[in-house]
Structures are given as C-alpha cells and as structure tokens.
C-alpha cells in the first residue's frame, strides 16, 4: 500500500517526498506525518532566513545577539527584576519605543496603556520627561485600563491598528491575567497589524516569573549607576539588561546606557561578577568632588 502512494505525482506535478511508511501505519496517517514534516521544515527554514523586520538599538553587541535589532511585529516582555527597578524598566521601554518609532510617519505612533493599579503605585508617564529621553510626546496616546484584562484587550486592539509602531502595556501583576494563550493572541495581533508590543511588568516578581509564554523575547531589567557628568551629576541612564529568552536565538546579559541626545544604546563594560561596584564616596554637602566621581563607571 505504501508503495502505491509513493508513485503518485504530487500536487501540480511537483516532486513527492519519499514516503517512509512506518510499520503498521495506514496510508492516511503516513500522508499526515509527511505533511507535518513539510510544515516543520518550512517553519525552521523561515526562522533561519529571518523574515522579521528589526529595529537596531545602536549597540553592536546587542544588535548582533538580537540578529539585527529588536524584532518588529512581535510581542516582547519587559520585567523589572525587583520592585525598586521599576524606573529602569520604564526607562528601557521608553528607549526601546524611541528606537521602534518610525519618524517619517506623522500622527500617532506609540500607544501606552496603563493599568489603574500600576498608575496608583508608580505614577503616570510624564510627557516633559519623556520628551527629554528622546520620545516625542506628540506621537503618544495614553490609555488607562481598569484591570489587567482590560489592559490586555486594549493592547490587542492597538496592536491590530496598522497606523501604530509601538504598543506598551503596563500591568502590575502579569500572573493570573496573562498566560500562554494570551501571549499567542497578542503575538498574532502584532503580526497582523505590524505594531510591536512591549508588555511591561514593573511590580514585584519579575525575576521569579515562571510563566511560559509565546513572546519573542523576555527581558529582566535592573537599574545600574550611570556615568556621572562633569559636576558629579547623574549621567545618561544605565541599566543591566538580561535577555532571558529569545525565540530562535541566544540569551545574554549586557550593561547598556541610553544616550537620549542621539537616541542610541551605548554598551558599557560589565563589572566582574554580579555585585555592583558601589564604592563611590557619597557627595559632600556643598559640592560633589568631580575627580573621584569620574574615576568609576566608564
């Protein structure tokens, strides 16, 4: 029986893959298995070819690990490692949005959805500060959602809108509202509409999140001391970025600085070991000593 099928011509006269029937397998089952193998091969080949568009972040090592930059039209997860790192998580999401925003288009570009609880705990996006970090607030639309479900619904709607570049959703606790199915839906919506989704959890529990999801990447963000300026003031924001999952790619850990003037990420050397070097002296009351401050970092 198996031999009969192997000699039939394939659709449109194409080649038929040799059918290695397994013992005891019916013809239809063998056909099904063959079809599945073809699909798998095409899927894997697709990833190797990498048809997903990417937005370069500006730092070579990071872009190389990401195979060109932050993938567009997919869902990324950004989690704060600890509760105190929420500023860092927001900063990274903002910087990523600035890179993803296509500046040749006018009108709406970024939709930022905030769940009410996140708003109460961590405050509201502040457009003057956002402008200073390199994201034009005239391209920003701010949406408030009552609860995680409403926020995820709004994110799905926004991802489908072809006029947008980025959709950011802040949810205080992902566990419970967000699961594998939800991540698949959001990924699908992103692919249909072309917008890139950034799902942000800035509350506690980022580091321990054991959720399985279909997101393209997952980032753990932690604050890091900046390179101070000439007068000892805080410099460009810096973060420890840990890529803990990338579909079809490697994980990684980098120390990145966001240059908001040129709107690019700049890599900084990782300190040896996990502990942060906190040996800078505290500033004196009248004026911080510039020489000693500048010796660290860089």
């Amino acid at each position, binding site marked *: 029986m198996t031999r009969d099928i192997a000699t039939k011509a394939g659709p449109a006269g194409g080649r038929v893959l040799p059918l290695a029937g397994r013992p005891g397998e019916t013809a239809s089952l063998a056909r099904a298995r063959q079809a599945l193998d073809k699909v798998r091969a095409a899927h894997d080949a697709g990833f190797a070819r990498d048809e997903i568009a990417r937005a370069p972040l500006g730092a070579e090592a990071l872009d190389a690990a990401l195979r060109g930059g932050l993938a567009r039209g997919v869902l990324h997860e950004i989690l704060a490692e600890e509760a105190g790192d929420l500023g860092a998580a927001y900063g990274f999401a903002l910087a990523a949005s600035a890179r993803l925003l296509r500046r040749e288009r006018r009108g709406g570009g970024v939709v930022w959805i905030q769940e009410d609880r996140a708003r109460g705990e961590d*405050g509201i996006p502040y457009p003057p*500060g956002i402008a200073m970090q390199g994201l034009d607030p005239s391209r920003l639309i701010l949406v408030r959602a009552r609860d995680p479900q409403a926020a995820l619904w709004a994110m799905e709607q926004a991802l489908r809108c072809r006029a947008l570049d980025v959709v950011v959703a802040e949810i205080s606790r992902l566990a419970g509202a967000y699961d594998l199915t939800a991540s698949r839906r959001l990924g699908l919506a992103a692919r249909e509409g072309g917008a890139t989704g950034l799902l942000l959890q800035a509350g506690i529990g980022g580091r321990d999140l054991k959720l399985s999801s279909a997101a393209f990447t997952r980032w753990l963000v932690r604050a890091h001391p900046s390179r101070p300026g000439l007068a000892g003031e805080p410099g460009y924001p810096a973060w420890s970025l840990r890529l803990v999952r990338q579909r079809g790619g490697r994980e990684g850990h980098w120390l990145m600085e966001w240059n908001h003037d040129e709107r690019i990420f700049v890599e900084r050397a990782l300190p040896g070991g996990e502990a942060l070097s906190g040996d800078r002296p505290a500033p004196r009351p009248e004026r911080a000593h510039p020489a000693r401050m500048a010796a660290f970092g860089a």
Partner: protein
Amino acid sequence: MYPALIVADADPEADKALLARLGDWARRYTPLAAIDPPDGLILDIAGSAHLFGGEQTLLDDAVARLAALGFTARAAIAGTPEAAAALARARPGTIVPAGGEEQALRPLPLRALRIDPQALAGLERLGLKRVEDVLLRPRAPFAARFGEDLIERLDAALGRVRSTIGARIEAPSYVVERRFFEPILNPEDVTRTLHRLASELCAMLLKYGEGALALEMSLFRVDGAVRRIALRAARPTRDPERIALLFREKLAGERDELDIGYGFDVVRLVAARVERLDETMTRLDGPAAGEDLARLVDALGARLGPERVRVPAARDAHQPEAASLLVAPGARPDPGWLAPPPGAPADRPIRLLERPEPIEAIASVPDGPPLRFRWRRVLHETMAYEGPERIAASWWEGEGHTRDYFRTEDRAGRRFWLFRQGLFGREVAVPRWYVHGLFG
C-alpha cells in the same frame, strides 16, 4: 375620617423622577417628548401620528398603555402645547382640528391655562371665569392689571406666539426606528435590528453628506422601561459596521446584561450630533492611517470610557504638575514639546507620582541635597545628584512654599526626583522632603 383612605407622605423628588421616566416612556411615540411638571407630558406628534393610524388611535393607545402601567391619564391633542395641556386637564379626550384652538378653548375655565393663582383670584372677583370672557375684551388693561403672564399664555395657546414648552424640545437631526408587533426577545434580534437601523441611518447621512459624531440608541420595553445607550465618535462616521461595533463594545464594557425582560417593541437610533463628511477617496492599499487610528480611539473609548483615552498637550507652566495636560485625541493643539539641546541634562522625570510622597531625608541645612532618604521603607543613599532647581509656588494659587528639586541617583543606580518644600528659616522651621518622580 375615612378609615379606608390610604395616606402617604408627599415625595416631590420621587414624583419628579417618576415623571422623568414617563417622559422617557413617552418617547416611544415620538422623539420629541418633554415633561410638563408637575404631572404632565407634552408630545409633538406632528411627524409620527400617521405611524399609529391617526391621532385618535395614538391618543387611545397612549391612555390605554398608561392605564396598563397603573396611571389614569387625561389626554388631548391640539395645535399648540399650551392648548393641548389646557384641554387635557379640562376636556380630556378632545382632538382639536387644525386652526380650531380658539373655538375649543373658549368654554374652558381660566384655571385650565394655569395662570398664577393670585391673578386667577383677581379675575374671578371681576366675574371673569372663562377664557372667552378674556378673549372678548381689550388686552392692554389685562396686562396692566394682572401682568404679562395671562396674555402670554393665551397667545401661546392660540398659536399667536411661539410656545415656550415647544422650544424646549430639540429635534435630533436623524432618527430611524423599528416598531415590532411582537416584541423582540433575544440579544441576536437586537443585534440584527441594530445593524439594520445603522445601515438605514448611514444611508440617510450619506444622502446629506454628513457623518455622526454622537449617537444614541433607545430600546423601549413593553413594560415601560427604557434603555438608552449613548456613543461618541472622534471623527464623523457613517460606516454601519463601525457603528454596530462601537455599540457592541460599549455594552461589553458596561458589563451588564441587556435586560430584555418581556421584550422590546420599539428600537430607535438617533444621530444626536452630526458634521459634514465629504466623500474621501480610499487609497488602494486600504483606509488611510489616520482613519485606522480614529477607529482605534473610538473602539477604546467605547469600551473603556472616553475619558480614559488621552493625548498629552504641552502647557507653559513652571509648576511641574501643570506643565503637561491630558486632552481628548483630536483636540490636541500644535505640539509644543521641546527636545532639550544636545548635552543638556534631562532634568525632568519620566514618571510623575500623582501626589508627591513624603520621605524621611537627611540633608545639610540650609539647602543641601538629600544625602540619605527613606521611601516606602527602603533606604537610599545618594551617590550623585544635581540641583537644586528652585521652583517657587504660584503666588496666585496661594500654595505658598518654594520647592527645591534635586535629581538624585542612589547606590544601585535608581534615580529619583525629590524636592524639599519650604525654605529653611525663611518659610518654614522644618522643611519637608518628598519624592515626586522617577527617572529611567
């Protein structure tokens, strides 16, 4: 006294509310219905009487339905609201033919015109009890003796001047409705009806070149309850699919069931506000991006509430809280966002707490930076800072105290926007510290 008499306290508020609900109910006959306090309803049936098989049938139907609801109603139909109101009270059941108001009003007692009681008493003392008594006499002395009110009401009733009650009813621009002999009972029928009505409404809008900015759907239940659902669109629309979708989203967002009860027998869709909408060329690659965005904004607003979808607008204010305003999309004025010159520090936070939170801070007096502070039970040691940036309180708002803002970074690299409130020694004895925002 009568033992069988039931006595209850008068509750004018409840009566007003009931009358308002009856006004809603009365809109099943015509969208132009107003309440005539304390106990009346006025309906403009000029455009809808024919739908009921004539004025007599409409009057009988209304009285019968009100009786079924438990009310004894007296009704009359006339060419002016005042005449109809007077006849309903004095000669219920009258239907006045066109132009016959004067004839019909003549035999009525003056009380039916609802004139001020003092004037009424005065007229009675003079022996003037009926409307015809006043009509036959010269008007000027009446006005002088009893005030304008009497003459105005008479003129309004006779149609000589535009009535005041009629002026309160605003006709909506576009109305489509469906009346069901058999009330519709399931949600699918409601949805189908909504689609049909939306298509009809949009066809009308297309004919006149307009689009709807505000829509209202009214569902009248057989037992008298009325459900209204109102919608707003950011841009004028005449797309039936979109309108139907927005109504569905609105219902889903309100999370309550469409309480159908024993069924709806009238469904009406009204475009309350419209605007010119010219034919737009659709691009070959689909609708324009702006259109897509407007759809999204509408859908989000319908489901979450329109006040939850906002865009930032810049304001020239030195108070940080006031430097940015959230406005409705579409209302955004010219963008005034300034990017800082290259090399300048980004001295505004990316997040602003809704209210500055008090912190315990250690700083050197009089105006040193916070060396250490505790916020939400976590201790932070300042390793780098910038400041102070002095922001005085707005003297016209009377708040009073100057704020010195500092941009600080702690040992872990967490960056805060803190301020000291009150100048030491000059404004307060002990300044207080707050955290106002977070940096990236």
